[in-house]
C-alpha cells in the first residue's frame, strides 16, 4: 500500500493544500486547530469531497485529480469517524457483515466473519443487539470491526475517541492500535489529542489554515512544537506518560 496525495481543496475563505505520502503499514497523524482543514483532507481521500486540483493516488490507481473523481465505494479506503454511523436497522453482527459483504464476501461468509470479529472483541453477546441498545464505546468497537471487515487498503480515522469518556477512549485507542497492527492496515488519524497521536501514529503533519506547517516523525514534531497549538498539545503530555509511549 502506498498513498501519494498532492491535493488542493477549496474551502470558504481559504484553500487546503497538502502534499504527503503514507507508506505500507504506517500510520500518519494530522493535527491542527479546529477549521485547519484536517477533515477536508480525509474527506477528499475518502471521496466524499471533490478536489480542485492535484492528485490522490493509491497503489498506482488515481482516486482523484482535477478531472477524475473515483466513487467512494471503488477506492478501497475505509472511514472511522467521530460518529460511528452504525446502521440503526441492522443488529451488531449484520452491521459488521455489511462491511464484509460490501467488499465482496458472500452473505453467509460475511456473517461468519462478523461473528469472528465479535468473538475477538469479546462482544459476542451483543451480536443481536441494535445500535440503539449499545453504549458509545461498544458502538465505536463495532464500527471499527465493520470498517476493518471491509478490508480497506487504507483506514481514515477521524476523531473516533472524541465522544467517548476517558476510560472508553483509552480502551478504544489500544484496540485500534492492536487491530491496525494485526491486520497490517495503514491509516491516517485525525486527532486533537497528543495521547492518540503518540499511541497510533509514526508520522505527523501539522496543519494550520489549510497549509502544512510542520511534518516528520511524531517524536521530532513533538520535540520542537512549531506553533501555539502544538505547544498546547505537547503541554498535555505527562513527563513520563504511563503506557502511552509507543
Amino acid at each position, binding site marked *: 500500500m502506498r498513498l501519494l496525495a498532492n491535493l488542493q481543496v477549496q474551502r470558504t475563505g481559504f484553500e487546503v493544500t497538502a502534499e504527503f505520502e503514507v507508506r505500507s503499514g504506517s500510520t500518519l497523524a494530522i493535527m491542527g486547530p479546529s477549521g485547519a482543514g484536517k477533515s477536508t483532507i480525509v474527506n477528499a481521500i*475518502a*471521496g*466524499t469531497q471533490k478536489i480542485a486540483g492535484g492528485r490522490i493516488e493509491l497503489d498506482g490507481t488515481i482516486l482523484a485529480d482535477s478531472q477524475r473523481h473515483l*466513487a*467512494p*465505494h471503488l*477506492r*478501497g*479506503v*475505509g*472511514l472511522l*469517524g467521530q*460518529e460511528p*454511523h452504525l*446502521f*440503526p*436497522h441492522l443488529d451488531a453482527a449484520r452491521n459488521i457483515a*455489511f*462491511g464484509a459483504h*460490501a*467488499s*465482496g464476501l458472500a452473505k453467509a461468509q460475511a456473517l461468519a466473519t462478523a461473528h469472528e470479529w465479535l468473538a475477538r472483541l469479546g462482544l459476542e453477546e451483543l451480536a443481536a443487539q*441494535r445500535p*440503539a441498545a449499545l453504549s458509545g464505546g461498544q458502538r465505536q468497537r463495532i464500527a471499527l470491526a*465493520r*470498517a476493518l471487515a*471491509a478490508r*480497506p487498503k487504507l483506514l*481514515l480515522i477521524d476523531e473516533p475517541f472524541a465522544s467517548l469518556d476517558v476510560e472508553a477512549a483509552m480502551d478504544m485507542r489500544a484496540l485500534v492500535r492492536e487491530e491496525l497492527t494485526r491486520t497490517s492496515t495503514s491509516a491516517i488519524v485525525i486527532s486533537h489529542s497528543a495521547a492518540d497521536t503518540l499511541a497510533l501514529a509514526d508520522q505527523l503533519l501539522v496543519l494550520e489554515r489549510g497549509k502544512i506547517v510542520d511534518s516528520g516523525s511524531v517524536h521530532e514534531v513533538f520535540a520542537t512544537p512549531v506553533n501555539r497549538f502544538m505547544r498546547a498539545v505537547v503541554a498535555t503530555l505527562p513527563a513520563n506518560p504511563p503506557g502511552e509511549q509507543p
Partner: protein
Amino acid sequence: MASDTGLRVPAFTLAPAVLGVALLILPLLALLGRASWSTLWADATSEQALAALWLSLRTGVAATALCVVLGVPLALVIARSGPKIAQLLRALIAVPLVLPPMVGGVALLFLFGRTSPIGQLIDELWGITLPFSTAAVVIAQSFVALPFLVLSVEGSLRAAGTGYEQAAATLGAGRWMVLSRITLPLAAPGLVAGVILCFARAIGEFGATALFAGNAPGVTQTMPLAIYTAFNGAGAGRDTAVALSLLLLGTAVLVLLCVRAWRPGAIK
C-alpha cells in the same frame, strides 16, 4: 403530561380547545345519530354501494402504487438536492395540497382531454380516451394524494441524513446496495406513514374525480361520489348516504389506527 413537566397552559385556552374538539367530533356523532340502524347493513351492502366500495378500493390501491413508484424517487431527488432546488420542488409538490380539488379536475381535463395534444397523442398511440374512465379516477386520486407520500418519505430521508449512506459507500457498497439496504430501510417509517395517508386521501377524493372522471356507476363512481349521488336522492335515499359515509368513516378510522400502531415500531 403538562403537570409532569410543570408547564401549564392558561385557563382561558381551555374553552376554545374544547370547542375545537367539539367541531371535529360532533358532526361525526350527528352522522351516527342519523343512521338508520335497521337498514344500515342492507344499505351498505346494496349492489351500488358495494360496486362503489370495490371501485374505491381498486382505484385507491392503484393510485397508491402509482404514487409509490413516482413518489419515492421524487422524494429521493428532493432530499438529496441542494437547498434551493429542494425548496422549489417542495413548493411545487405542495400545490395540489392547497389547490381546490375541483380546479385540479378541470386542469387534468384540459391536459388529458380529447382535444388536448396529450389527449390526442394517447388516443393515436393506444386508442384510449382517458377522461371519464377508471384510469382517470386513478390519475385524479394520484394527483391529490402524491404530495402526502412525497413529503412524508422526503421528511424521513432528510431526518436520516447522508451519514449512513456515506458510511456504507466507504465500506465498498455501490449505489444500488446503498439504496436498497440502507436508504430505503431508513426511510421505511416515512414510507409506511406516507402510503397510509396517500391511500386515505385517494379513497376520499371527490372534486377532481367528479370533474375529470365523472360519476358512472361501476366505472368511475367511487364511494365519495356514491355518497353525493345518494344524498341528492338520485337512485337512493339519504339513509344510503349515511350508511356509505359510515363505511368511509370506518375505513378512515382504521387507517388512523394503522398509523398510530406503526409509529411506536419505527426504526429504533
